[in-house]
């Protein structure tokens, strides 16, 4: 995982830790190790969703930290993908993270694209297949946080997975969680 430490995730990734399961300390641990690039719309959506629930300071701390960066994108390449996605997918910044990944891929920069939306994943696989090797489920990434590095303890991974399963905001299928749990158990 060390050669693939530039992380790109949509708004649901941050919101699941900060709002849905309310475990910001796990996100902090992850962000302290990996180089997260937050695209502008993702930044805006996360702030909007956290506003008024008293959790915004956690996100601000992460977004303003030494590692996570809010990308300053002065072009609008994401619009080329937005035309093809639905409104809710756009709202969570799927088009931005896919477009940003394309830019990094074209520059031969290593990255990891975290996407859980099944349709967005299908779109990438079918039409932008060069991104597929860099695309991961959040669950797979959590698994790697223990099995490929020591960012999270086994128990912490299980705790996260259990909470995320119940929250179901990532819309990760049950079989995927089960597979990841089995893998963490055995690694």
């Amino acid at each position, binding site marked *: 995982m060390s050669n693939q430490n530039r992380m790109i995730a949509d708004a649901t990734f941050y919101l699941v830790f900060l709002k849905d399961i309310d475990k910001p300390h796990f996100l902090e641990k992850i962000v302290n190790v990996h180089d997260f690039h937050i695209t502008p719309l993702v930044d805006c959506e996360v702030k909007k969703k956290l506003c008024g629930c008293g959790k915004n300071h956690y996100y601000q701390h992460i977004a303003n930290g030494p590692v996570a960066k809010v990308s300053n994108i*002065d*072009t*609008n*390449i994401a*619009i*080329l*993908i*937005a*035309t*093809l*996605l*639905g*409104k*809710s*997918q756009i709202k969570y910044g799927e088009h931005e993270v896919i*477009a940003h990944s*394309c*830019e990094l891929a*074209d*520059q031969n920069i290593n990255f990891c694209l975290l996407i859980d939306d099944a*349709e*967005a994943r*299908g*779109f990438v696989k*079918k*039409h*932008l297949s060069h991104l597929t090797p860099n695309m991961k489920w959040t669950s797979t990434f959590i698994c790697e946080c223990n099995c490929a590095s020591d960012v999270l303890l086994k128990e912490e991974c299980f705790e996260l997975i259990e909470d995320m399963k119940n929250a179901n905001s990532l819309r990760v299928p049950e079989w995927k969680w089960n597979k990841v749990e089995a893998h963490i158990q055995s690694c």
Partner: protein
Amino acid sequence: MGNNTRVIEQSIILLLGANERPVRSMLLLEKEVFLLTEAIPKFRKAIPFSAHYKGPYSQEVKELAIDPVYYKDAIDLNNGIRLTTKGKEAYKEIIEELKASPLYNSIITALKLIRTLYDKLSDNELLLLIYNSYPKYTKKSAISDEIYRDKEHLSQSLLKKRLITEERYAELSGQPNV
């Protein structure tokens, strides 16, 4: 004529050179240039598009693709629109010039994305997406009425190619998700 003419011709050559495959039709080329101007604001300033019954339209793009001023004999209009040998050389030169620009990487990605995704659309599928996404560039007409009447079938076709998501299908067709 002037700098804008040159930029328009360069943008056409960049799009044509971004993929070996020819661009299927003039309508597709026009709309792909439009999408480039939306993605890269630098181009938007030089290439004005106006509302038209077939969506955003630029007479200059069409005329300069047929008869370029600065890049004579660069474009072959037989069996689709493609670069000639001379055009391919011009493409390489333009790319070299662009490398100094801070927008170089974004432009390259935009060109690749446009040709990868939008080449796969039929003219009517493209028009439906453009009408829906850029309504201010569309003048109501018999053609737009026809496209909207056929929106369910066109959206189905886009979904079958998996070029749009189910949610986008519902938005375009006015039908619930399949």
